């Protein structure tokens, strides 16, 4: 069953900006679904529509079988959201924020208390329990924000860039919590992220949005296979060195369009004479001071860039990080 179904949705803001241009996607019950896209791709607009905060200009959106426009109140009782902007009552302490959230969602007092203790412990918030939210660091606020969203055990949990501002430990803790919530309560989780590792590790399905439309949707592995080719990767001791030798590679493997990323030169192994054998022969013939050579499988980053960047091929020749 679809927990979320979005069909040909457009959203035009009063100022004329067209944020969504006929987006369609579906999210299965109980899955972790990641929305990937560049800034302005329409991810946050979609979340705001799904959480009933905004109305779509056209198209249909159902959440847990309910229409978000006509049955907004029913939808709101089954969902929770941690928005991109941390949304806490800064004058309340962490514990008070949680108690307020429990009352908002009509969680019985004792049950609310039990869940609160559980989340405080799971998110490592013990020492901040009585501290006003305004006096906490960004990472602590973010953890609390997500804990608040989880408190009501929603049918669908929306997380807009949940790992933004979190340190590595908190991020890993949050990932574990999300997996546990899904396992324990069957909660469907929809998150937006810029973190490709997060999308790859956490998600059952990834949807890449570009300019308000879906560019691709599938499991991380399925999306990686979209590129259907391995890359040859030659590593140098520095990025400057890699860039210095790039023209030689462009001349030798023009069909394969080599490009520099960090301190490595990449090109598509398929097509022309760009395989690992010709590469090794070229390196030895030119006596280049390379550190290593390998075959690299495409990462989520490669898929993302391939699907979201305009004129990717032209950019690849000059793009560096």
């Amino acid at each position: 069953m679809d927990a979320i179904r979005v069909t040909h949705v457009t959203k035009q803001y009063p100022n004329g900006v067209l944020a969504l241009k006929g987006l369609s996607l579906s999210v299965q019950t109980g899955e972790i679904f990641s929305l990937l896209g560049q800034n302005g791709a329409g991810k946050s607009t979609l979340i705001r529509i799904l959480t009933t905060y905004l109305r779509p200009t056209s198209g249909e959106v159902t959440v847990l079988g309910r229409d978000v426009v006509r049955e907004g109140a029913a939808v709101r009782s089954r969902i929770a959201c941690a928005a991109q902007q941390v949304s806490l009552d800064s004058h309340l302490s962490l514990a008070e924020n949680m108690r307020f959230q429990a009352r908002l969602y009509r969680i019985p007092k004792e049950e609310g208390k039990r869940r609160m203790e559980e989340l405080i412990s799971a998110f490592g918030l013990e020492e901040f329990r009585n501290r006003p939210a305004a006096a906490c660091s960004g990472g602590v606020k973010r953890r609390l924000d997500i804990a608040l969203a989880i408190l009501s055990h929603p049918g669908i949990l929306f997380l807009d860039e949940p790992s933004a501002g979190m340190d590595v430990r908190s991020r890993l803790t949050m990932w574990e919590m999300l997996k546990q919530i899904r396992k324990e309560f069957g909660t469907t989780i929809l998150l937006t992220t810029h973190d490709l590792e997060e999308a790859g590790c956490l998600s059952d399905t990834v949807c890449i949005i570009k300019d308000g439309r879906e560019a691709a949707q599938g499991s991380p592995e399925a999306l990686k296979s979209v590129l259907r080719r391995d890359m040859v990767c030659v590593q140098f001791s520095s990025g400057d060195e890699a860039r210095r030798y790039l023209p030689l590679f462009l001349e030798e493997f023009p069909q394969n369009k080599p490009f520099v990323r960090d301190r490595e030169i990449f090109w598509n192994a398929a097509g022309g004479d760009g395989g690992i054998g010709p590469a090794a022969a070229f390196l030895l013939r030119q006596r280049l001071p390379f550190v290593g050579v390998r075959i690299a499988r495409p990462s989520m980053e490669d898929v993302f860039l391939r699907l979201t960047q305009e004129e990717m091929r032209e950019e690849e020749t000059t793009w560096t990080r």
Partner: protein
Amino acid sequence: MDTLTIFRRAVGWRFHNRITIAVTLLQPVLWLVLYSLTAGPAMKLQGIENYTAFLFPGLVVLVSFSACGSGGMMNYMMKADGSFYRILTAPVRRGSIVLGQMLEAVLCSLFEVAVMAVISLFFSVKFPQTPGRLALLLVLAGCGAFLTAGLSYGISLALPNEMIYETAMNALALPVFFLSAALFPASQAQGVLSILIRLNPFTYLIGSMRALMLRGEIHPRETAAVILGFLLLGVLAFRWSAGLLEKETRR
């Protein structure tokens, strides 16, 4: 239940921002102390024995605008810290959100009225001695505050930022205060000024409170009309605000 949850939260916000109580009290207290002392002798010539007592009901209106105005400011702060979005996506009725905050603004207004009342005791102001009359005075003050709370909430949703909101609230509060019977008897006004004062509903609210305080008089029909009229206007302001809040999610 939802209303109570929002109300408690708003009380918490007010308690945390106690400075708003002091700031919103400042101007009415200055009027109460300085203006009544300065203008008192001149008003004695007009037959007003205790001008501080005469001024008090008008200042109840002024303090309501100040206190409820800062309640509207809460919406801008909630939007800035994101909790506005959290509440709107929670399973809480829009009406409960508005009503909870309006009731907190009414409570704050009544608290500030009580502080002014204590101060005015030092200026020989006498308040009704019976609990019934005292309660009636509080009901009248509460009705005025309910209307101003609804207006403040709606205006804060209708205007884009705090600066425009503050300007708009001043542009509303000062004419309401000056074009009423707050500073002088309505009967002394003439011409256009008299018409404007009679068109101002707060004139009648002030009149009822003043009759109760200065002469201990209750005119049942007039008082009931004032209470019902203000409740009606308050409900209209509440519905307007709730509509605007609903509209926030229809953009």
